[in-house]
């Protein structure tokens, strides 16, 4: 039976994990505002920032965890792992928020921008009165997904084995894994239920009120109402509190951020070459400083040998198989997300039930369910690939849902009424109205989901639960990365990561960017 002490332990662990998550979420929002607005406003910044974000969001978190851990521990041996964990959760939460902010700024109506210009709003005022409020709905809409994604990797971040050394941070991920492995099944379930309860509480108390609050920051004449749930009464005071903070005083911290940003922007604008040269020099010298402690030439040798051992055909084969898995997961995701989003748009009543349900579901960490999924797949004697694709799907589908359903909700009422007047229904309505309207968000959603998919590969293609190892039979880049992490093979790890990141960069450049360009061209200037 479960003891009171264990219950307390679970609660304390939850508190620790939640503190990590909240810290990195705040960091993510601040970072997204800076970077997203800069990219949305400044052409030059856009050209630099967006490709970098594309690449960064596609780097598998767990593969650079050892590197990050190494660097942060060299900064401070005790708080280093803690910072490393926050940093890694941050890298799993930030990208969709940053892209959301960028998109919100890019899609600002021309009239509004011109009005701001004609009102003579300076960069600072524009930031406070226009850009941040305009980005607010996208941030609010992306927080649940980010939280879910952070939880997904929290479990993996708190406990990590590299070769012989093992780091453990006290938290819900560690504790639930320990319960599972020591056969304390009721305790495992209780900690799982505690996570679910905490996630539901976060949604009701914070995420949903925030989303409701953000409604009035939208530009559509017919702003879609955020569905009300039965706990409306319970959450109202919190929502109102936020309302007061946001409405009366503007966004807290908005002003210093804006001042810093406009200062930064003006510097970069004036000294493009010098600033970029300085940035690159700083990056190289700082990494050289940390790498010095393990001797640069050794390090290079290790990495080169890693590339040598990987060869040329194997990595391509691994990436090919992994790509297949990610693409199938996205297709499966789209197959339910698009019809459900349309259904929600057309039946307002469903929205009130389905959207909060999905928000809660989306916030549940799929990684905590890994043991369960493995068991189900093994019991049902399904091909192991289905397990891997299920795990990728769990890590990607909510991006698709939130991107597409929020695009659906911002379709002007009148356009839908035109379809009704001319009795344009079914597939025709999809072709003439829904598809063009959601196209940019569809592409963006797929891009972000794919990034998320690459990230989940490390846990999806090869699962290590202490002695129990479960992996796909066919090659996979995630499997290779996971193997390199467990064996502590730094060279192989870096080489495989570079292969993967390189491939993702090429894919983004040759495929996604062009597709997004096309999509926005088709939709034209949205009036």
């Amino acid at each position: 039976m479960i003891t009171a002490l264990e219950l307390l332990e679970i609660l304390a662990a939850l508190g620790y994990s939640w503190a990590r998550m909240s810290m990195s979420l705040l960091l993510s929002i601040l970072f997204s505002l800076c970077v997203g607005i800069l990219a949305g406003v400044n052409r030059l910044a856009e050209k630099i920032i967006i490709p970098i974000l594309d690449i960064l969001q596609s780097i598998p978190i767990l593969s650079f965890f050892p590197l990050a851990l190494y660097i942060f521990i060299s900064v401070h041996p005790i708080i280093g792992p803690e910072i490393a964990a926050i940093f890694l959760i941050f890298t799993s939460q930030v990208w969709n928020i940053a892209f959301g902010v960028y998109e919100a700024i890019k899609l600002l109506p021309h009239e509004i921008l011109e009005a701001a210009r004609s009102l003579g709003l300076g960069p600072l005022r524009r930031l406070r009165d226009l850009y941040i409020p305009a980005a607010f709905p996208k941030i609010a809409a992306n927080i649940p997904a980010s939280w879910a994604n952070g939880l997904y990797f929290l479990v993996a971040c708190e406990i990590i084995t590299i070769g012989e050394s093992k780091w453990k941070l006290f938290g819900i991920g560690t504790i639930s894994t320990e319960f599972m492995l020591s056969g304390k099944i009721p305790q495992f379930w209780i900690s799982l239920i505690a996570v679910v309860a905490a996630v539901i509480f976060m949604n009701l108390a914070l995420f949903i009120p925030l989303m409701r609050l953000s409604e009035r920051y939208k530009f559509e004449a017919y702003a879609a109402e955020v569905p009300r749930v039965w706990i409306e009464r319970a959450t109202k005071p919190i929502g109102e509190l936020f309302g007061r903070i946001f409405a009366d005083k503007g966004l807290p911290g908005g002003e210093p951020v804006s001042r810093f940003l406009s200062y930064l922007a003006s510097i970069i604008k004036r000294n493009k070459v010098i600033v970029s040269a300085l940035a690159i020099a700083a990056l190289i010298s700082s990494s050289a400083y940390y790498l010095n402690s393990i001797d640069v030439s050794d390090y290079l040798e290790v990495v080169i040998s890693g590339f040598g051992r990987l060869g040329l055909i194997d990595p391509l084969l691994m990436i090919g198989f992994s790509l297949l898995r990610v693409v199938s997961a996205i297709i499966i995701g789209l197959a339910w997300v698009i019809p459900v989003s349309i259904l929600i748009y057309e039946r307002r009543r469903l929205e009130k039930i389905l959207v909060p349900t999905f928000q809660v579901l989306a916030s549940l960490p799929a990684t905590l369910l890994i043991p369960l999924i493995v068991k189900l797949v093994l019991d049902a004697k399904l091909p192991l690939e289905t397990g891997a694709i299920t795990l990728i799907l769990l890590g990607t589908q909510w991006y698709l849902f939130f991107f597409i359903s929020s695009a659906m909700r911002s379709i002007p009422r009148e356009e839908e009424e035109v379809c009704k007047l001319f009795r344009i229904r079914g597939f025709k309505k999809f072709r003439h109205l829904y598809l063009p309207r959601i196209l940019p968000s569809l592409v963006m959603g797929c891009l972000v989901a794919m990034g998320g998919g690459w990230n989940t590969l490390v846990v999806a293609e090869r699962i290590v639960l202490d002695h129990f190892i479960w992996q796909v039979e066919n090659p996979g880049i995630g499997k290779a990365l996971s193997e390199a992490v467990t064996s502590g093979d730094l060279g192989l790890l870096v080489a495989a990561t570079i292969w993967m990141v390189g491939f993702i960069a090429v894919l983004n450049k040759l495929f996604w960017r062009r597709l997004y360009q096309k999509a926005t061209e088709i939709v034209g200037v949205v009036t």
Partner: protein
Amino acid sequence: MKTAANSAEKMREHLLELREVSFSYVMRGGEKLQVFDKLSLSVSYAEFLGIAGPSGCGKSTLLRIMAGLLKPESGEVLFRGKPLKEPTPRISMMFQSPALFPWYTVLENVMLALIHEKELSREEKEERVKVFLDMVGLMGFETAYPAELSGGMRQRVALARALVAQPDLLLMDEPFSNLDPLTAISLRREIETLWRNQSLPPSSVVMVSHDIEELVELSDRIIVLTKRPVKIAGIIEIEMERPRSRRSKEFYEYVDEVYTLLS
């Protein structure tokens, strides 16, 4: 030109009739906002009906009920004597904004209204669309995108789209409110001409507007509504020669009459 006898005879028949229609919105707080409580009114054949009322009283909602876009909670909407269950191509609507699809050209936007005309070939549809584009003065703009047009031109596309399926009834929700006065004048003239020409659609027009002079200039009859729940404050029949001059004394007497009912 319609003869007086002809139109008087047709006036007696109702093209569209609202019988004791009730409608309410559920507000954010959860309370019900009664917009209409057993409201009855009718639109006759060949009539130009103006609707005026204080802002926010539910004029747009009323038009959407007439179009079949919204279902009344109780009461009936009869179109040519039969219950109106859903939108029909016989009733078309122009919104305050043109509501064009930005990803389609002018031609494609107007073609959307003919999507169910299965017996027409694509070429025939294009021909017909071109006739209507010509009618609203947009010949030569078929391949332009809405974003490349001015506000007045966009509203003309919306007009062509509303008319191309040759409806009996055209509903207009403040169609000129977003236009500059000169464009509004010429578009008003065009709509009046189209409506008066019996061989061309539409037979009847219902127009909601804040602009009382505009209503007096165009309407046969003006229904003035009250605040919520909406009742009919009064109906004014306007018997003036067309085209009407805005400078005549008679014109201003009608305008004053509407204002009196509104306040």
